[in-house]
């Protein structure tokens, strides 16, 4: 009954199992609302901490509730939500990111003197949207989830209220982001026109059955624009450096990982389940552009936040390479990449926002001079994250790139792979610049470095452990990713022949 794909109008009411399947979202929403309600009731100084802790408990509870969610796989709410290994993977990832962000926010909020409980509420509610994106298989629901997460991010970007840069970033992000979601919505509308459905599975099936109408190509392209904006893929990346520079440090850590992971999850479902011909070239060009523009842009940055912003564009490019590969390998490689990218990038931003100090004063490369001597532990931590971003063996970043490129080679995308590996070679330069500054240059001015508080320490330890774990023992996570990729692909397998592993071009092209 649950798995019937017939339009489920026969069900008058959602089943109780349906609620279990969105349990993490429910938990997060409840905690978000608790934070909202308590905020005006608590004394300002004290309340800040309490609300932060409540939010942390909320994410941990949500993390726990994914276990229940994982126990009852299947469709829910009239085929709008799909719980499978894939969505569980992204739920765990996104909620864990939120927990780490909240942990690293405690100190940041105190140092920057931002007093606002809604900060934590917005994180929780934004995460609801992101988590929902990864399990929704109904385009309209995906759009709603996308909006929930976007609106929360717009507000969070502007949280450094005293800074003009922050307000500018927020406005820029809001205007461009609205455009992008409008593109997505337009794509959804066209797709409905082309296939008569907004359910991803059904769309996939009807596109496979008949010759693909022109409208469907346009629809996929428009949806790709909307999601490409969210993942900061070139040529939709222009907003990234400005927004990352202006937004609060921990929020950049969140923005550059969690919504990206969610958008990639949606993209994976759309691209591989709605197996539109021609997707290959769309992705090929975007991936090559993102890698190249991101890396070239990062070469000349002096502001570490901007540098990491360009690096995140480049990483979106590497990740997109996986989308050009065959479904099974591509999906699992992309999942692994999102996870390890989240770990290393979160860690890097946590260090950067700790080091920035009050008013985010110390964010230029110049400020990092001599950090290796003045606070060796912080420098070593950042170094490991940067090495992982370069893709040095023994770190998660290495295997992430490795799986992506080996999936691409298997799909015979030799040129894309060569562009990719060359880029990752060039990219090493700017990460190295930071390391060089820390270890090989002497500091000219005094940059005060506060000791690392416990919460931030825990956050960094989690990121570090994940980065190293994925670098030394990647098998478990990869196997899980492969299994869940299999589930996603197989669901549409009876009707959709999976392209042979050696051919990169979909069979119908």
């Amino acid at each position, binding site marked *: 009954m649950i798995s019937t794909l017939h339009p489920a109008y026969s069900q008058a009411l959602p089943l109780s199992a349906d609620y279990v399947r969105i349990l993490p979202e429910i938990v997060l929403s409840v905690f978000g609302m608790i934070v909202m309600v308590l905020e005006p009731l608590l004394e300002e100084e004290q309340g800040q901490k309490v609300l932060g802790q409540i939010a942390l408990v909320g994410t941990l509870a949500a993390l726990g509730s994914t276990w229940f969610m994982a126990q009852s796989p299947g469709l829910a709410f009239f085929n709008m939500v799909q719980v499978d290994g894939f969505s569980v993977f992204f739920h765990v990832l996104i909620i864990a990111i939120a927990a780490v962000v909240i942990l690293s926010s405690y100190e940041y909020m105190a140092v920057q003197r931002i007093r606002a409980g809604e900060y934590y509420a917005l994180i929780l509610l934004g995460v609801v949207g992101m988590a929902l994106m990864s399990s929704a298989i109904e385009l309209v629901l995906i759009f709603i989830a996308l909006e929930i997460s976007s609106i929360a991010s717009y507000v969070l970007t502007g949280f450094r209220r005293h800074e003009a840069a922050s307000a500018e970033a927020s406005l820029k992000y809001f205007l461009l982001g609205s455009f992008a979601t409008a593109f997505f919505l337009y794509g959804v509308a066209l797709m409905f026109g082309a296939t008569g459905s907004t359910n991803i599975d059904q769309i996939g099936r009807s596109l496979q059955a008949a010759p693909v109408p022109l409208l469907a190509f346009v629809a996929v392209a428009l949806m790709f624009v909307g999601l490409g904006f969210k993942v900061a893929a070139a040529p939709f990346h222009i907003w990234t450096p400005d927004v990352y520079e202006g937004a609060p440090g921990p929020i950049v850590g969140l923005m550059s990982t969690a919504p990206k992971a969610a958008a990639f999850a949606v993209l994976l479902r759309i691209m591989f389940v709605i197996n539109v011909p021609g997707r290959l070239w769309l992705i090929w060009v975007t991936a090559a552009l993102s890698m190249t523009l991101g890396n070239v842009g990062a070469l000349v940055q002096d502001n570490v936040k901007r540098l990491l912003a360009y690096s995140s564009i480049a990483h979106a490019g590497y990740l997109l390479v996986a989308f050009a590969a065959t479904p099974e390998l591509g999906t699992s490689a992309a999942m692994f990449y999102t996870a390890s990218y989240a770990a290393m990038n979160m860690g890097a931003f946590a260090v950067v926002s700790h080091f920035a100090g009050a008013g985010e004063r110390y964010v230029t490369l110049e400020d990092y001079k001599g950090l290796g001597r003045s606070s060796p532990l912080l420098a070593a931590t950042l170094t490991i994250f940067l090495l992982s971003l370069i893709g040095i063996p023994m770190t998660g970043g290495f295997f992430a790139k*490795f799986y992506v490129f080996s999936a691409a080679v298997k799909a015979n995308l030799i040129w894309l792979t060569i562009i990719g590996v060359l880029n990752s070679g060039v990219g090493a330069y700017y990460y190295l610049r930071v390391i060089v500054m820390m270890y090989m240059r002497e500091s000219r001015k005094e940059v005060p470095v506060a000791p690392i508080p416990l919460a931030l320490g825990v956050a960094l330890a989690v990121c570090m452990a994940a980065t190293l774990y994925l670098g030394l023992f*990647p098998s478990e996570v990869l196997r899980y990713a492969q299994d869940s990729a299999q589930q996603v692909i197989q669901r549409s397998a009876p009707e959709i022949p999976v392209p042979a592993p050696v051919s990169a071009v979909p069979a119908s092209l």
Partner: protein
Amino acid sequence: MSADNLSSVILTLVTFTPLVGGLLLIMFPRRDRDIRVFALVLSLLTFVLSLHLPVHFRRGLTDFQFQIDRAWISTPNIHYHMGIDGISMWLVVLTTFLTPLCVLISWNSVHERVKEFFIILLILETALIGVFTSLDLFLFYFFWEATLIPMALLIGIFGHERKVYAAVKFFMYTMIASTFMLAAILWLYAHTGSFDFMEIRGQIARGAVPQFPAAAQWLFLGFFLAFAVKVPLFPFHTWLPDAHVEAPTAGSVLLAGVLLKMGTYGMLRFNLGLFPEQSRHNAWWVMVLALIGIIYGALVAMVQPNMKKLIAYSSVSHLGFVVLGIFSFTQAGLNGAMFVMLAHGISTGALFMLAGILHERRHTYEISEFGGLAGTMPVYAATYLFIVLASGGLPLLNGFIGEFLVLSGAFQAKAVYGILGATGVIWSAVYLLWMYQRVFYGKVTHPVNNSLGDLSGFEKSAIWPCAAASLVMGIAPILWLGAIDPAVQAALAPWTQVVSRVVGQ
């Protein structure tokens, strides 16, 4: 533990003992003396352990020995597969031999961040040994890249004036080149389903790899580029002088002594092993590049005003001999190439130590700053002369044997290669002896040189083992060649026919 039991884990022990030592050092208090002693003990222990290899090595067998093969990562199919043959065994021993000497030569010359220095040095040793012992392409790449960071840090933190420039240049050059190798490795994995060297070699030999003929040339080039930059083969050599001049002495010793050999070892093992036909087809231009490297390196070395740069360019020249020998596809040539690798590692390592000793006393490498040192530093001068002669290829010392074999191999391949290569031997005598003359003979032109102290105990203990090894290798090369020769024969097996035809011409 009996020898047999030890043999199954010996490679793991040799490879990771330095790493464990490095990690233990992190917990040490910052008492420099203890740290130095500990590093020395650890590196000596590694050396002693590595001696197990030549002692229990079964000469005459062509197979890989002391193999260990365990599944590491299931998807993709990566194995922890190590093993050595006569070629890699001596490179492992060379590494473990040079590292304690590096510790000794750095004993008094590294004063700042002593702890970091020795940690990095020990980690570097593990990575270097790992490169030579890996039989899984993935594992090989893993160690290959892992050597980059400690070496770049050694140059960048402990180097001289333009250290950062040199470190970044070194890192970027080798990193970008090796990404091509990664692409080639990924292609091989995608089409064979394995990273195992022997498995892939077998599949290629059987012609069981789909699409291989079309891709083989590109794969060959992908591997070759990574190795050529590392060697460095002309015209990819420009990073080397910078890196050497700026590196601390121990960094230079390992860079010249071992790191460069990673490139030639890679050519020998992977280019020849996996792509025999392509190696054959491409041999002519590789040999031309090698010859250009030999002559160009020597000529540039001759006019260097900077002693360390001179030695660096002499490395370009010597490594040209190695490449020439490898791509001559003759038994003599390959034996010679292997022998030059070892001889160069020891004699050039010693030359860099000697240059470092002068730098420590005078803080300059400029040859014109010296002169007449034979009178003020007699022991140093005598040791220097010995090493110069070894490096220049005086018979009965180690440089001669290798170059002789390489040249006789090159003659067999094509006479003109041998003739041109032979001029390199003359050039090397010219630049080395001329440099020696300018530094040690004549009058003392700079009064400050009158007060220079002779070799200290630590310095003697670092350099004299190299001198002794040079002598032994020169007198009894069979001790080394006995293990090298069967491995070389096995490597040459695909061409035995071709070679006999060439020789018969």
